[in-house]
């Protein structure tokens, strides 16, 4: 059978909705690549520009009246934590789309997002640790925010382990999708952990119902860095999806060759 990304015919048989036609149009990997690949160099330019602006602005921002110069760790730490949660959300949405509509491209998107999410989570944990040592006097505490972030790291590892353990990609996609959706419960827990429990970690200071409690000259570089991380993920993700599609095609060509022999 066809299966995989290179051929959507096997999946089209099971669907007869007319609503699906728009989705199917973009489920075609070739069309997806033609649409997104020309954007990649531009996205790189935007990413580098955002990182340069954000880092220079962060470098020139005034030191915090309490934390002094260590506040600059924030420009690496906070966007990493945001990205870690954003990537998991994207992964869960892609998994749900792949699970419900049997959309191979969504499965590829979910699969390739996971390693980036794990790296962002690791970066947030490590920079948070480096920041915590001078500020809290300890590298690590087992409080709600830190623990739930560590759980997120474990969820990423488990998700990647499932893809490793199951050889057949379509089955792996469905099983990993269930795991990703089940683990999504952790995202609101991370977000609200600082409100629900007394935590050493500071409460939300940027995304609040009223207004950010952080000074604007510190906030702007932070937002630019956040945008920079988002674009970095976007461009890396698009490249990884391309790699995934290519490797699936190679796999199918190999299988076809074996059958011909």
């Amino acid at each position, binding site marked *: 059978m066809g299966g995989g990304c290179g051929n959507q015919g096997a999946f089209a048989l099971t669907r007869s909705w007319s609503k699906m036609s728009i989705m199917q149009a973009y489920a075609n990997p070739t069309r997806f690549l033609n649409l997104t690949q020309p954007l990649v160099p531009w996205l790189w330019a935007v990413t580098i520009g955002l990182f340069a602006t954000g880092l220079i602005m962060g470098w020139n921002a005034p030191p915090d009246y309490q934390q002094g110069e260590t506040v600059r760790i924030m420009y690496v730490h906070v966007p990493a934590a945001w990205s870690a949660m954003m990537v998991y959300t994207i992964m869960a949405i892609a998994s749900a789309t792949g699970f419900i509509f049997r959309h191979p491209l969504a499965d590829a998107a979910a699969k390739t997002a996971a390693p980036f999410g794990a790296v962002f989570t690791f970066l947030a944990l490590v920079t948070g640790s480096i920041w915590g040592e001078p500020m809290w006097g300890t590298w690590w505490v087992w409080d709600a925010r830190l623990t739930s972030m560590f759980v997120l790291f474990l969820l990423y590892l488990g998700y990647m382990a499932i893809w490793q*353990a199951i050889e057949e990609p379509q089955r792996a996609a469905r099983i990993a999708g269930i795991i990703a959706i089940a683990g999504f419960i952790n995202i609101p827990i991370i977000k609200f952990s600082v409100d629900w429990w007394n935590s050493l970690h500071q409460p939300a200071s940027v995304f609040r119902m009223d207004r950010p409690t952080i000074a604007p000259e510190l906030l702007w570089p932070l937002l630019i860095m956040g945008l920079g991380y988002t674009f970095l993920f976007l461009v890396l993700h698009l490249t990884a999806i391309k790699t995934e599609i290519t490797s699936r095609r190679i796999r199918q060509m190999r299988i076809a060759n074996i059958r011909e022999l």
Partner: protein
Amino acid sequence: MSAAFALLKRDLRLAFRQAGGTGTALGFFLTFVVLLPLGLGPDQALLQRIAPGALWIALLLSVLLSADRIFQSDYDDGSLEIMAMGPQDLGLMALTKAFSHWLTAGLPLAIAAPILGLLINLEPERMLPQAIAMLIGSMALSLLASLGAAVTLGIRRGGPLVSLLILPLYVPVLIFGVAASGGMTQKPALLILAAISLASLVLCPWGAAAAIRAHLR
């Protein structure tokens, strides 16, 4: 419904007659409790302080240890395939199997835990809250274990993988379970624990059924 009862009866009979059922889980639990003072030293005050948490960790690990018997043997001999093809809802079957796992692992351990807690100097007035919290929390543990067992069906050396996948999801149960076993925040923690169990009662059988279908496809 009658099919679910028949399945429950069969699973309970298998659990009692086969090796590796309730006895193994209890034995593991006992070994854990006995090893703990050997590792930490026989300081009564220290043991009293950590007893509720230690019992919870022992419960988590023993439930996890027996997780693979929820679906694996039925998968191996093909009866799971029959269940999936039959007219009954696979989710109900998964729920029944999780329930029989709870009856043979979670329930006996929750009853035995406060008594074994005597070995590590659990305060007597904490015994009842500990048993109630474990009774409620172990339902969530069994249901999540059934999800993990369904996801790793037929994977070679799936055991360590189940731990990696399911232990992160056990974290909330552990946190609120220990809080509900004593201390100031007992009642709210117990209510949250019950909420976790009810939520996993609704979601886990559905997820397990989806995973089983994906594996049998």
